């Protein structure tokens, strides 16, 4: 395994080891580029994952201080926990559900398609679906996505069967067990899904793709990739010419280290990535690194989300088996006649009893609440996930008072739903309930959004430097050797789960970086 010197200024330093950072690291290492990944969290291998929601949360979740504001309910119910993401090697690919969908063509050109939506900071991506298709294909092959590359779909569990029966009764057409980066048959040295459930708690069998046990060990095997766990980046430094020169980070003991770098790629998820850029402000870049547009931290998106749980006369046991292997795609298209632009997906979802109690209706108590929980074994559930509107005022800023243990200001997350988000959620609740009513639900529960799992858009791509933070390759408009490699580069959120697009962009970015390095452009 490689070990690079702190003064080796030839390495690419990647901050974060999730879908973006972990993939980029492996792809570069495969091309012979020397890479150091700084990962804030510890390295926890899959056999150590825990099939217990709260214990797993303690083991994996990013629980460092953050603050919240805005009218979203999360700010009230979980004021210190705006996002449910992972602090460990593999990042949020450890707890993601595995849903791997391509954007629709129009979702790369939302400004052109939706027009002027008051309050929305819409912009077309500087890249099209046609350009992305070959990269999507590579990502699907890498991740082993079901229903691509001849890989069969996963078998449907009880929760899916309820969803499917209801969807068909309603007349929905595109209903299946999803495009999942979970092995339905052994592939790439990993076994097939054992229907354990607990996909969100880390896949103990390794059937679900995670950079932790795919990209990262593959990259390490080349001798070109070093992953440093428990290494929290605190500042990116630059020289007098404005090029970045390295990353200062706190190591496992809390001691500050400085890793020199030829290139820095930021992939710390859409809350930490802008925080790091803002915390890297200097005399030359007083508003933060890569922030001449003022867009760093802005346009924070978290998807329109919500859930519908329904109780039936007889048992479902929704928690058995793959958590999210089930989808209805009929509402994903853009059909403004419904009263909103963009679309949404309906995907199976289940929570165990402990998280159901915590998230079904946070703060609720008394008989209406306990009656719902008494229905737990007879419950089916779906997640609603749709495109939300980017808004300049939905934003990650540096908290003026709260600091982390290294003295750095923590991220403050402000979010208000856009009227389009609210209209979409109302429609989705109605349709989700109708799916279950069609097969005899005795009661349905429209469940509010959980702390965000899809954090997007805070360092967005733009064609023109004034409109965003990075170009079509995730390269900073302002600083040539600084890249953004996670979901924060999304110009808009699309309806579907973001990981496949993050991976496709990372593969493409690796190609671009390696080429530019070879041509001595950076």
């Amino acid at each position: 395994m490689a070990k690079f010197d702190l003064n080796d200024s030839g390495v690419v330093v990647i901050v974060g080891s999730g879908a973006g950072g972990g993939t980029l690291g492996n792809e570069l290492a495969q091309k012979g580029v020397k890479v150091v990944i700084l990962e804030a969290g510890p390295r926890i291998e899959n056999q150590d994952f825990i099939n217990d929601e709260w214990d797993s949360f303690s083991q994996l979740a990013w629980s460092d201080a953050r603050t919240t504001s805005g009218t979203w309910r999360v700010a009230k119910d979980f004021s210190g926990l705006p996002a449910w993401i992972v602090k460990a090697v593999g990042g949020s690919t450890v707890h993601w559900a595995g849903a791997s969908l391509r954007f629709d063509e129009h979702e790369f050109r939302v400004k052109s398609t939706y027009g002027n939506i008051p309050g929305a900071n819409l912009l077309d991506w500087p890249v099209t679906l046609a350009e992305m298709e070959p990269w999507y294909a590579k990502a699907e092959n890498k991740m082993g996505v079901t229903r691509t590359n001849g890989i069969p779909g996963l078998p449907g569990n009880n929760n899916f069967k309820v969803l499917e029966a209801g969807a068909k009764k309603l007349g929905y057409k595109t209903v299946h067990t999803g495009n999942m980066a979970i092995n339905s048959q052994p592939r790439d040295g990993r076994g097939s899904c054992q229907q354990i459930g607990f996909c969100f708690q880390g896949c103990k069998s390794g059937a679900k793709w995670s950079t932790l046990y795919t990209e990262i060990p593959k990259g390490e095997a080349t001798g070109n990739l070093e992953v440093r766990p428990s290494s929290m980046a605190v500042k990116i430094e630059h020289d007098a010419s404005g090029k970045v020169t390295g990353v200062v980070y706190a190591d496992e003991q809390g001691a500050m280290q400085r890793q020199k770098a030829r290139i820095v790629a930021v992939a710390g998820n859409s809350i930490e990535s802008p925080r790091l850029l803002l915390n890297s402000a200097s005399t030359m870049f007083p508003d933060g690194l890569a922030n001449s547009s003022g867009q760093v931290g802005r346009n924070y998106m978290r998807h329109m989300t919500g859930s519908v749980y329904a109780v039936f006369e007889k048992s479902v046991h929704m928690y058995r088996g793959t958590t999210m292997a089930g989808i209805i795609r009929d509402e994903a298209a853009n059909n403004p006649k419904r009263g909103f632009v963009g679309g949404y997906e309906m995907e199976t979802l289940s929570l165990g009893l402990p998280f159901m109690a915590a998230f079904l209706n946070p703060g609720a108590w008394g008989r209406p609440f306990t009656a719902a929980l008494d229905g737990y074994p007879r419950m089916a559930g779906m997640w609603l996930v749709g495109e939300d509107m980017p808004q300049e005022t939905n934003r990650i800023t540096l908290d003026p008072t709260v600091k982390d243990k290294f003295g750095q200001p923590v991220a403050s997350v402000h979010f208000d739903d856009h009227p389009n988000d609210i209209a979409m959620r109302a429609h989705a609740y109605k349709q989700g309930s109708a799916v279950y009513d069609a097969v005899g639900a005795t009661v349905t529960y429209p469940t509010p959004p959980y702390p965000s799992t899809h954090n997007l858009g805070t360092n967005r791509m733009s064609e023109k430097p004034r409109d965003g933070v990075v170009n079509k390759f995730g390269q900073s408009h302002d600083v040539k050797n600084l890249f953004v490699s996670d979901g924060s580069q999304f110009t808009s959120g699309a309806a579907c789960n973001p990981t496949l697009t993050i991976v496709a962009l990372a593969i493409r970015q690796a190609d671009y970086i390696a080429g530019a390095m070879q041509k001595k452009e950076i």
Partner: protein
Amino acid sequence: MREVDRRSKHSRRIFLKGAATAVPVAAVAAGVAVNIEGAWADEASALTPATMKTLLKVARDIYPHDALGDSYYITAIKPWDGKAAKDPAVKALISDGISRLDQNARDRHKVAYAEIPWESDRVVLLKEIEQSDFFQKVRGDLVVSLYNQKEVWPRFGYEGSSAEHGGYINRGFADIDWLPKA
């Protein structure tokens, strides 16, 4: 379909046997009227037994599940005594919160909170203090301490950890048999 055995494995008898060991042998032998049902509350050191018993009632009223015996609720609230022993602020929070509730109960019903016969009447009193720090802390703690008990899970048809059993691939992940034919 494979149903989950929802019978209590955390039986009342076993629980009471455990609690009874804390009762002085002499008292039992002498036939002194020791309320075994309340023995758990007498073990409290920082909070009074009466406070603990009222807290139990409050816990039941916050998350009423009629199929669950008191033992699960006692397990959920008992740690407050330990926390109160360590932190005077916690002790005051719980003691004062219960006192206020009892006071409101006496003003309205002439009896202490736990003596009000109907749950719906007690819930009115809880509703009034819903925004208080006392209620918020007790409810926020209880939503984890009650529902995160592994002994509680089968009572709700939840099976918990599955990886060590080979997942559900051969244990009913797709055994639903009552849906209409698609």
